[in-house]
């Protein structure tokens, strides 16, 4: 890499320079003739520039008489003029409503922004690369109203993305990603720097052309392409930075933990503490407590971990060809000590357009990705939270332990080893992934500018090799065999699209029509095997021997096997849009989709939309309004993202022992998923788009009602440990989305922009196939979908407080018999007796909240001053709940540590706490019932991104031309504010059992353009 840079610099240095020329002039408004103050004049291709003065005048010396100047001003269309040996150049700029002429990518084609009748938000390259991340979707957080992004902190893992609430309960409700025409399940593999734009098709009308794949919204990704007749440019874009864990949860230390353990009154707990005294001695500062006081998060978390990204792109074009070629490297280390946890990725991409004949255009696009991910072993975060502080990391007296003398909580009498270092030192979990993605198309112009036919073939090949190795070790109490698990997963997906497009204008009428056919297949295969007790004991020193080659041992049959599936889809679709004098817009699409995944094979998905550009009407005379459009649309979508339903009983093979022989038995499974209808979404969207004050202010507002019908829901069957999928629910998401942007300049020197956006979301179950409610979640932490309430709402008792005295219990209205039976004592929860019958039972449960935020918002600020750029993004979510499942773990084991906030505030006598029960009460069944003690407010506010850049370079150094350069410092997620008693408030499912901490990232970046 370094050699490459040196040579690029040298190359630049060799280029010569020539003499400079002085140019001056005045900039005015083309309509009014007023001087434009603070407008920018820049020599094209350099950073050499100036700003107009109070009379609109400027002076600039340019490098040669053939240079070109670019004149720009906020709210006006830019102009370019060649100097051509002139010394005076006066320019009149026109107000820019041309932004609306901009073309937007829609499904299987493009449309002018102006003509849209649906809700599409596009995010451009500069905005995407602001976020230092491996995956581009993360950079949309807080920027697109109606799109909820829930970050994930683990290296290489992508965020959860939800468009307009939960579109389905199946899968993870993720949108369809269409990458240059190919359907992919995520874009985590893609280098964000290769992306030209991301368009989110939010409403049904925009998405309906993707039919059965579109119910969760559609995200269209275009990668960068070159331009015709453009000189080659080479760009380097990179950053290097550090990730720092944020908001690390404070757990009870030894003193707090021992106080709690003794307060429970349990003999076993007292005995563990005694054993800790015996084994590790007494604390010198306070001899009432054991000596060891381990802060596990401190032991497990690195203080920082590096992250870096480098991309080189070359692009350009001639008369009949254009290209863009890039190479990228990304590396992110994880935050866990000792064990490998990291993500490393290489991206190579080339995109070539050829105008081979006047009537024939060919494009080829190939994207190759190779990545290697080391996943922090599963139990690490779980153990770090739950491990008692009484044991150290290493324990020299644990003499049987090999190869490392790790402390083992079993030596104190606990059930488990607890020490997370067992997970960290004796494991390596590696995922190697490769992906080849290609798009090839031919575009034939049958009637110039009117009728064209395009056929395209899109292909992806994915390979994922998983290798999980566990080393042989002795934990001091028992011996553990080494084991190796390997799996190879491959998938081949292809799409063949054929599209006819027709555009024609007859006087004031213009028509655009499209008809298409698409064939799709998705084929998946997996082979996996496991073996124990490897011939050569594996360790980090002999990775070359991590193979299961010993012929003497048997592969574990019961953990080895294969899996596969092939799904087919065919679709017929069309679009018609009509425009009268740019005033009245009508739009419609229709798609007929077939798939072999369900019992019902075919579905039809229509949409219609209309728009009225009020500002084009002759009666419209509000001068400050540049453009005003009212729009409305209706559409129907399907969801094929649900797992295939087998639709009939199946036979499953299982192994058993009969007289010490391994036998295979068959179990007939008669509980099966049956989906005889398609999950569909019907949405109505109304919106307004306007630009005001010469383009300075733009507003977009949308209101939608989105009904999902025949939604596939997991139905818990009575009696059996089985749940099946049925088309059992209908629910409604509705919301209001708003985005506003203001651009202007202060005193003609500082250009700035301010944007805000917000979205509301109301989610409600509308029907449940005749039932009043459907249960979900787990039996202990019930979630229930009730008609009129949010989907899968947390469901349980309302805690009114904690009983302080026996008198309070006696006068609480609870029946004496109930109090005696439940053994209610002071220090136990006082649940709200909703029906007032003196008994707390299942009839007293109520909806405690939903994991879906009711309100999401973001705002941003951008500023330019001379060579400095500054931007800041903020975002937040409110109105949702998180189930603190970690605190709920006490239901399943009492052996674990608790968080400091809880331990510090436990009830220990009248008046001590009205929030948390007593130490003994925590372990009582009565207090462990699902209640809002476990369900906490998940709202947060975050400073998402702060960025300062300085432009330098250009001009000359030692008489040589220098490349344009920009140096940037970024702070990503430096501050998050929340009340939730957990590590981070971003929990996609709302159930926080084990989450990877989401780090703050601080980077320094460099951008060079040759």
């Amino acid at each position: 890499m370094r050699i490459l840079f040196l040579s690029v610099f040298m190359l630049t240095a060799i280029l010569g320079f020539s003499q400079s020329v002085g140019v001056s002039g005045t900039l005015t408004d083309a309509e009014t003739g007023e001087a434009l103050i603070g407008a920018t004049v820049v020599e094209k291709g350099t950073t050499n520039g100036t700003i107009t003065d109070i009379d609109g005048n400027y002076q600039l010396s340019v490098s040669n008489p053939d240079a070109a100047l670019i004149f720009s001003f906020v709210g006006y269309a830019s102009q370019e003029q060649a100097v051509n040996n002139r010394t005076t150049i006066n320019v009149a700029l026109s107000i820019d409503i041309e932004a609306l002429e901009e073309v937007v990518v829609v499904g299987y084609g493009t449309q002018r922004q102006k003509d849209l009748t649906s809700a599409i938000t596009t995010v451009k390259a500069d905005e995407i690369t602001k976020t230092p991340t491996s995956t581009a979707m993360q950079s949309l957080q807080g920027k697109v109203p109606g799109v909820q992004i829930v970050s994930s902190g683990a290296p290489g893992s992508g965020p959860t993305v939800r468009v307009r609430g939960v579109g389905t309960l199946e899968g993870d409700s993720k949108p369809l990603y269409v990458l240059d025409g190919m359907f992919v399940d995520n874009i985590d593999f893609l280098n964000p720097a290769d992306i030209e734009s991301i368009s989110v098709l939010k409403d049904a009308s925009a998405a309906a052309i993707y039919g059965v794949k579109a119910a969760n919204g559609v995200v269209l990704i275009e990668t960068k392409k070159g331009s015709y007749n453009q000189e080659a440019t080479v760009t380097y874009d990179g950053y290097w930075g550090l990730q720092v864990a944020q908001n690390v949860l404070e757990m009870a230390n030894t003193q707090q933990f021992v106080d709690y353990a003794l307060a429970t009154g349990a003999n076993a707990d007292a005995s563990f503490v005694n054993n800790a005294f015996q084994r590790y001695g007494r604390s010198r500062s306070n001899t009432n407590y054991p000596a060891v006081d381990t802060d596990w998060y401190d032991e497990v978390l690195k203080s920082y971990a590096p992250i870096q990204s480098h991309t080189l792109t070359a692009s350009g074009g001639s008369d009949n060809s254009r290209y863009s070629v890039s190479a990228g490297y990304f590396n992110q280390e994880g935050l866990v000590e000792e064990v490998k946890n990291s993500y490393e990725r290489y991206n190579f991409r080339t995109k070539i357009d050829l105008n081979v004949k006047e009537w024939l255009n060919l494009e080829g696009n190939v994207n190759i990705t190779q990545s290697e991910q080391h996943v922090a072993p599963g139990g690490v975060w779980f153990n770090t939270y739950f491990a008692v502080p009484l044991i150290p990391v290493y324990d020299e007296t644990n003499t049987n332990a090999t190869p490392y003398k790790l402390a083992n909580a079993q030596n104190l009498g606990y059930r488990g080893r607890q020490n997370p270092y067992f997970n960290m030192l004796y494991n390596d979990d590696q995922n190697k992934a490769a992906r080849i993605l290609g798009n090839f198309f031919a575009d034939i112009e049958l009637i110039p500018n009117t009728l064209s036919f395009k056929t395209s073939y899109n292909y992806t090949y994915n390979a994922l090799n998983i290798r999980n190795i566990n080393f042989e070790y002795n934990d001091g109490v028992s011996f553990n065999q080494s084991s190796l698990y390997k799996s190879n997963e491959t998938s081949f997906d292809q799409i063949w699209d054929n599209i006819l497009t027709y555009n024609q204008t007859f006087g004031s009428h213009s028509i655009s029509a499209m008809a298409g056919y698409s064939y799709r297949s998705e084929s998946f295969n997996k082979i996996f095997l496991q073996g124990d007790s490897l011939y050569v004991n594996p360790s980090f020193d002999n990775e070359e021997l991590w193979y299961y080659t010993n012929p003497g041992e048997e592969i574990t049959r019961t953990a080895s096997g294969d899996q596969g599936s092939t799904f087919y889809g065919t679709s017929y679709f069309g679009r018609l849009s009509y425009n009268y004098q740019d005033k009245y817009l009508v739009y419609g699409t229709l798609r007929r989709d077939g798939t072999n995944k369900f019992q019902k094979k075919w579905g039809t998905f229509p949409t219609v939309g209309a728009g009225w550009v009020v500002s084009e009407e002759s009666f419209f005379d509000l001068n400050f309004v540049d453009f005003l459009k009212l729009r409305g649309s209706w559409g129907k979508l399907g969801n094929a993202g649900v797992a295939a339903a087998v639709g009939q009983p199946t036979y499953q093979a299982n192994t058993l022992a009969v007289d010490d022989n391994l036998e295979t038995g068959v179990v007939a499974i008669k509980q099966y998923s049956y989906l005889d209808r398609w999950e569909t979404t019907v949405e109505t969207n109304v919106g307004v788009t306007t630009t005001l004050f010469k383009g300075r202010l733009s507003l977009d507002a949308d209101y939608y009602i989105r009904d999902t019908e025949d939604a596939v829901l997991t139905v818990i069957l009575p009696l059996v440990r089985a749940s099946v999928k049925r088309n059992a629910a209908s629910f409604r998401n509705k919301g209001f989305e708003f985005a506003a942007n203001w651009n202007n300049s202060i005193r003609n020197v500082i250009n700035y922009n301010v944007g805000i956006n917000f979205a509301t979301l109301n989610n409600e179950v509308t029907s449940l196939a005749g039932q009043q409610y459907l249960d979900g979640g787990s039996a202990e932490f019930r979630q229930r979908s009730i008609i009129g309430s949010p989907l899968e709402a947390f469901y349980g008792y309302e805690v009114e407080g904690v009983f302080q005295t026996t008198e309070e219990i006696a006068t609480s209205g609870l029946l004496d018999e109930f109090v005696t039976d439940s053994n209610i004592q002071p220090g136990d929860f006082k649940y709200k007796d909703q029906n007032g019958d003196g008994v707390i039972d299942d009839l007293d449960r109520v909806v405690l909240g939903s994991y879906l935020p009711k309100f999401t918002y973001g705002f941003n600020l951008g500023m330019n001053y001379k060579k400095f750029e500054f931007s800041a993004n903020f975002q937040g979510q409110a109105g949702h709940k998180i189930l603190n499942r970690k605190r709920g773990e006490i239901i399943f084991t009492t052996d674990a540590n608790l968080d400091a906030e809880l331990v510090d505030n436990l009830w220990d006598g009248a008046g001590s706490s009205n929030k948390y029960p007593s130490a003994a009460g925590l372990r009582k069944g009565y207090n462990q019932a699902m209640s809002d003690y476990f369900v906490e407010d998940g709202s947060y506010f975050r400073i998402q991104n702060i960025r300062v850049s300085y432009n330098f370079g250009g001009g000359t150094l030692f008489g040589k031309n220098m490349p344009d350069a920009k140096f940037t410092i970024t702070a990503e997620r430096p501050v998050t504010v929340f009340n939730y008693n957990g590590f981070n408030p971003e929990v996609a499912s709302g159930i926080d059992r084990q989450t990877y901490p989401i780090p703050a990232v601080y980077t320094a970046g460099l951008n060079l353009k040759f």
Partner: protein
Amino acid sequence: MKSYKFFTTVFLMAAVIFLAPSCDSALDNPQEDTVVESGIDYTNISLRKELIEGAYYTLYNLQWETYPLLSVRGDDVNAKGDQEPLLETEAFRYSRSFWMYNSTWLNLYSDIINWHAAIEEIEKFNANSNDPGVGQQYIAEINVMQGYELLLLARLWGGILIPTSSQAEDLYNSEVTSFEETMAYISNLMDEAMPSLLDVAPNQHPVVKGGITRSTALAIKAMANLEMKNWQGVADATSQIIQSGQFSLFADYYELFKTPGKLANENILELQYSDFGQGSGDAVRYLHAFFGPNNWTPEVSGASGGWGFWEPSMKYIKFMIDRGETVRLETSVNFTNEGIDSLQAQPGYSTLPTFISNTTRDNDVWGTTDGSANPRAIFSSGKHYLPSNQLIPGRTDYGSNKNFICIRYAEVLLMHAEALINGASSSVMSADAAVNAVRSRAGLGNLSGVTLDNVLDEKFAEFGMEWGIRFYDLVRHGKTSELTGYSDEDRFIPYPLQQIDLLPQLEGN
């Protein structure tokens, strides 16, 4: 040029038009990698064997929480460990939201429903077979499995729902069957199954060695009748088992619960597990770690201990010492030094028999060598212990390769005695003879003119830590004053909340 364009276009469009319909037919392709019912060849009657083995897989696949919940409430055992539901249940403080209640309910009912599915499938093969006898036998074996687990369910919850098909949804509209009706139902079900069952000892079962035979059905019938106090019904069933001559008491009580006792002649119903003679790779095992010691120093180093959750009670140990028990106490209880110390601290127990030691006869030492305390159990259950020197070298899981016995011939003998003392008659064997057979294997002298208390004491001594037999005996005979904290409404545990939400007809407890 024009003609090229024309040609290319026509070619491409034609390709689309001709290929599209053939692509559409791909939608009719079946799903891969799933064996569906419609693809089964019901004339291939050999699949019946796979189905019956699948039914045994279901029976053997006993989840760890089921057994403790069934067995924790007696005075023979203390719950220890980090499971509040178990500790609370032992103290007769029940809560319908305890995870173990729902989980155990699901474990047992899932088996019963899956067995109905297996029966329905076997019937389809039988319809195509000119030898439905084997199929009928398999169905009868499955009926016995169902009877057994219905018995376990009713012992916990009293009134239960009795599934009659593989469709769990059918239960939405079914009524609760009372405890007594359930026992009668089980008794009838066993009667109906018996004619189709093989009349051999389970370890002579030709297809599934150790599987279910006529005697298993008789034993379960006896257990159901015992719960109904239909003493003659008990005596008739037990008499037939005794008379069959298929069973005998395994001479070595200690080894009965270890590797040598696998598929012994005493075992009427036994769950099978195995390491298949290999030191690594495939293994099918029960989670014996539940019973194992927190701390131990095994003869074979590296062998895992367990969780220390199942502690024989001091009451049981003193009872055994008072009776002069030797091998049964040695087999039933493993002692730590703390256990021995606290036993000796009890008045009258300062001198103990020599076999009471923290070291088993297989040289596994209970407790650590550094002398730190065992915070969980100071005794553990020896019937659920496999000596580390019986592990197949390479295996380290506690109790790996050990079977789990459900019904023993000794229980049949003592049920027989219990029935006769309560007024039933049998010409096959007297109550005295039955009790003395069990005593003699334990190295104890004969009794004559045995009373109910003699029999219940004998069962206490013989079946400590096994399946809650003691608890159900005490409740049946109203001797609940032995149970600390018990009151009459504590006989059955409450229905799990999740099940009430799904099945509102579950009321009462």
